[in-house]
């Protein structure tokens, strides 16, 4: 990750409903949004940001950019990311949710080959309070401080940020890895980044049911993370068989012979909150029962300092 307060930011899908709202908010908050891309809107201006048909046209006007934030329609999002990679952009945030998983499989392969960092899809993006906003985070819920906040999707991450801020605990960075079934970067990847980040003293990980990201995170934390981590998992009482709205909540696919990839460290039903909570507890990571409990656990962790290995 290479993000600075003056990083040059491109917004793809800037004329779409969500893109337009948030490009304006990002710019108003001081983020250096240098250009937008929306096919068919070249040579227009939106919120005083020049709009181009193609990234290469944008770059020849404003120079190389550091990061692209994508708000385009789900079926176009991966093409936008491919275009960004082709233009040499190596940090990409896909805000749009509902990107077809097989598009992401192709994109992830390309990202690995080109060492491109992808966040999302289905993510609120990244905020470095007081410095940089790349996505949909409500900046006024955040304040500078020592907590690295790592979630999956938007509104629950904001909720936890607000709890922290109200308790006087600011954030070094906050981001969601995305609510979609296949996402570009994982909890372990971000845990590693936050572990190495000088401004982060403690990490709060906000999980939810579905998939195995939290189990993988718990394993990685016990093996490789030196800083203290606090976890919270939403969905303890999520009724089975009811739809809530994230593709990420969906079991990858239900093959009739069962899924051989399902391994739950606890023996609890895989993908459930219980499985995730016991994975964290086995890794000796404190788990908050409710959002308001997170600040006290964070304060306790800050007092004890670096985790004893």
């Amino acid at each position, binding site marked *: 990750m290479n993000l600075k307060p003056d990083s040059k930011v491109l917004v793809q899908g800037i004329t779409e409903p969500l893109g337009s709202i948030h490009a304006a908010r990002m710019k108003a908050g001081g983020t250096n949004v240098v250009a937008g891309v929306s096919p068919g809107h070249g040579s227009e201006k939106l919120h005083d940001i020049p709009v181009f048909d193609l990234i290469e046209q944008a770059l020849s006007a404003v120079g190389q950019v550091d990061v692209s934030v994508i708000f385009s329609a789900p079926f176009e999002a991966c093409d936008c990311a491919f275009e960004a990679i082709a233009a040499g952009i190596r940090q990409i945030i896909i805000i749009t949710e509902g990107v077809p998983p097989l598009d992401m499989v192709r994109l992830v392969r390309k990202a690995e080959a080109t060492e491109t960092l992808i966040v999302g899809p289905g993510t609120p993006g990244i905020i470095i309070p007081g410095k940089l906003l790349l996505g949909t985070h409500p900046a006024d819920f955040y304040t500078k401080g020592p907590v690295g906040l790592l979630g999956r999707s938007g509104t629950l991450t904001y909720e936890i940020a607000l709890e922290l801020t109200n308790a006087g605990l600011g954030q070094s960075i906050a981001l969601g890895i995305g609510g979609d079934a296949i996402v570009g970067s994982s909890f372990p990847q971000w845990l590693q980044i936050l572990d190495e980040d000088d401004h982060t003293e403690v990490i709060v990980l906000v999980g939810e049911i579905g998939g195995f990201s939290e189990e993988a995170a718990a394993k990685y934390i016990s093996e490789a993370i030196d800083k203290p981590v606090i976890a919270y998992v939403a969905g303890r009482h999520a009724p089975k068989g009811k739809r809530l709205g994230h593709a990420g909540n969906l079991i990858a696919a239900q093959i009739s012979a069962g899924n051989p990839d399902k391994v739950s460290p606890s023996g609890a039903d895989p993908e459930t909150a219980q499985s995730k909570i016991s994975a964290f507890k086995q890794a000796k990571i404190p788990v908050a029962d*409710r959002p308001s409990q997170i600040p006290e656990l964070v304060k306790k962790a800050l007092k004890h300092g670096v985790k004893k290995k």
Partner: protein
Amino acid sequence: MDLLEYQAKELFRDMGIPVLPSQRIDRPSDLKGLKIPYPVVLKSQVRAGGRGKAGGIEFVTTTIDAVAAAHRIFNLSIMGEYPQVLLAEAKYNALQELYLAVVLDRAERRAVLLGSSQGGTSTESAMEKMQRVVVDEDFSPFYARRLTQKMGLRSKVVISVSDIIERMYRLFVEQDLDLVEINPLGINPSGEVMALDGKVTVNDEAIARHPDLLQLAEKIPTVEGSGAGNDGAAIATATRNEPVSSISSCLGGSLGAPHFSKLDGNIGIICNGAALTMATLDLVYLCGGKPACFANIGGDTRWDLTPDDFVLRLTQALNLTIADASVKAVAIDIIGSAIDCNAVAAAIAACVQQSGRSLDRSIAPASSVTKPLNGWDSHHNGFLNGFGEISEGPALNFDLRQAESDSASLFSESSQPQRHGGISLIVRLCGTDLEPAKKSLAPLNIPVVDSLEEAIARAVAYANKI
């Protein structure tokens, strides 16, 4: 979403995967025009597994038997689902049965080929022998051959089974599927292969770009017990219960209706965002309450969601919630960066005012309801004190009797005090422009708070009092 067997087999046939001669049966009398020679197999076309054990598959040798069997199968519900179609299929003598699948592995972020030399109805033995090959680069047929070798196949079936796997993979990618499964793949004494049963799961995010799959999906009956929604998401075991009606709402990027699910408590929950909805439900239980229903009106990463659409979805969700007679208290929890608090407050006020008449019909007689205006807070003092800040008295109230006397114009057709119970709302909103929202909801006795846990605690306390 799972396609039915006959639909999966149509896709197989188009992809050159061998399937038996078969005929779709819409009603028992169709069997009189059967073109396949007896003996045939009649198979119930439901999405549930275990059809054979449930009696949904029968071998028949004559037309008379076939018609009788068809009557039985059409009237047999398997896991709550009646077939609308049967499949009549030729019989096949398999010497060996294999299991094959192509599936997406979320952790690997790759397609995975699965195969077992022990296919058929015994899933346990299939699992024991299950082999997997990750397709970590662009697909090439050697991945399929690698799987056959891990499965222990030898001689000329290596070629024929590899060919089937390759075609399954092509189908998987071309149609954006979550799963292509053949179980069993029969191998007859002369070494020929045949897909005897198959399952295809369509990806809900991608189906809108496959008009042919949309057409198939529209033929699948909706199973009772599923909520409505359009994001193509379910929790854990829900894949079998997903409503087909949700599919059409994906078309053209339209937003569709908000997710709305029914439970058996007395608190209505409306939230924006799936994870926040789950966290809010958890809080309701943690505070000792039980949700009657919950609605997720959508998070803030939908590319096409405008603020107007957001308010419209809130209105839809609130109307459904208020119309639910079991709902005694409603907690609305909205957080985000582009939320217009005034518009949200206005929409809530409009909903509540317009719903007056339907509430009259759906709520229990006044005699059975404790008057909610007095004392609920003192009753639950110990509990609420845990949250510290409940000081503004009996605020959590939207009692219709009270509202009518406060403002008769709200319910213009109510000429006298009605016989109905109260329903209470509490709204959690965040942001800098909260004061106007608070003011506009105050006349309706709907408090606006900025703490989620306070909102839930108060809603639970009220609902438990009733």
